[in-house]
């Protein structure tokens, strides 16, 4: 099984631009797709943590990348993740660039993300797509694990900075091309986002200040409607924790 995360991906960009996104157009016509309306706050660190630990925010208590001025690491997050549990049960699993911490977390893979996992320049933002895609192709070519999870994170930064602009559509076109390269690598594929996006002023939560200390004006912020596209996935994701619970059930482990 292959899980592809697209941080911050939203139907509000994909559907109105579907004719520019031939891969999404094709897979949406062929496979289940739906909205995950988050009941928990749409904070990336917390949602990705819930998704792969099966714990609600009040249980994992990992709400953001930074706590009390300290950048959080894997050791600060006191939970077992799905990869820990599957490994204990001798099921092969790899996880690439999972952004519940910064730099994003890797399991059974070495990966050095562009910009330390916080890509800021356009070059870093573009490079992330290429490097993640190449890594996915190489991992699945070497020895495909029974579960492989990979997340593209830079779409979130693009959406904060360029919401409403043509450059964000161009970035979705790059993501569409990447998905085209990897979607057929497994019979069972789940694509999902951790939250959606909307205009900064309309967003129900503001995750960052509108004008950053470096003078950038943020155009977009997080929305609680995330996306899901499921090819032969035997469970439905109504909330992030359903990913963990569905995997536990599918692999029949405890």
């Amino acid at each position, binding site marked *: 099984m292959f899980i592809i995360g697209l941080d911050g991906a939203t139907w509000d960009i994909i559907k109105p631009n579907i004719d520019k996104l031939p891969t999404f157009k094709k897979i949406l016509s062929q496979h289940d797709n739906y909205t995950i309306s988050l009941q928990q706050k749409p904070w990336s660190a917390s949602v990705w943590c819930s998704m792969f630990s099966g714990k609600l925010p009040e249980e994992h208590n990992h709400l953001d990348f930074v706590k009390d001025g300290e950048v959080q690491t894997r050791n600060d997050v006191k939970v077992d993740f799905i990869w820990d549990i599957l490994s204990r049960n001798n099921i092969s699993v790899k996880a690439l660039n999972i952004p519940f911490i910064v730099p994003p977390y890797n399991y059974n893979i070495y990966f050095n993300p562009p910009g330390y996992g916080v890509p800021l320049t356009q070059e870093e933002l573009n490079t992330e797509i290429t490097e993640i895609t190449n890594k996915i192709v190489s991992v699945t070519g070497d020895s495909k694990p029974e579960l492989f999870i990979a997340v593209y994170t830079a779409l979130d930064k693009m959406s904060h900075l360029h919401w409403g602009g043509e450059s964000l559509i161009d970035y979705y076109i790059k993501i569409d091309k990447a998905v085209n390269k990897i979607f057929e690598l497994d019979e069972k594929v789940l694509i999902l986002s951790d939250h959606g996006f909307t205009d900064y002023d309309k967003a129900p939560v503001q995750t*960052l200040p509108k004008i950053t200390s470096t003078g950038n004006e943020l155009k977009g912020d997080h929305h609680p409607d995330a996306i899901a596209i499921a090819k032969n996935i035997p469970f439905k994701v109504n909330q992030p924790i359903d990913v963990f619970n569905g995997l536990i059930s599918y692999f029949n482990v405890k």
Partner: protein
Amino acid sequence: MKNEKRYTTISIPVQLNEKLKEKISGTGFHSVSSYVIYVLRQLVSSSYEEKKGFTKEDEKRVRDRLKNLDYL
């Protein structure tokens, strides 16, 4: 200090124990316990090396980038 415990008990699945017995057969390990202690020491050591690999300078760069986005 006479009564200070130097070892503790950790449970592993019986099936894994059997596999480990097969694995150490004919090697210099006289028991599964000594083999497990060896492997865990290696693991702890490599985790430490990985942590050392992420330098203070790297950490500063991450903090600077998070500051740039006002996470810090």
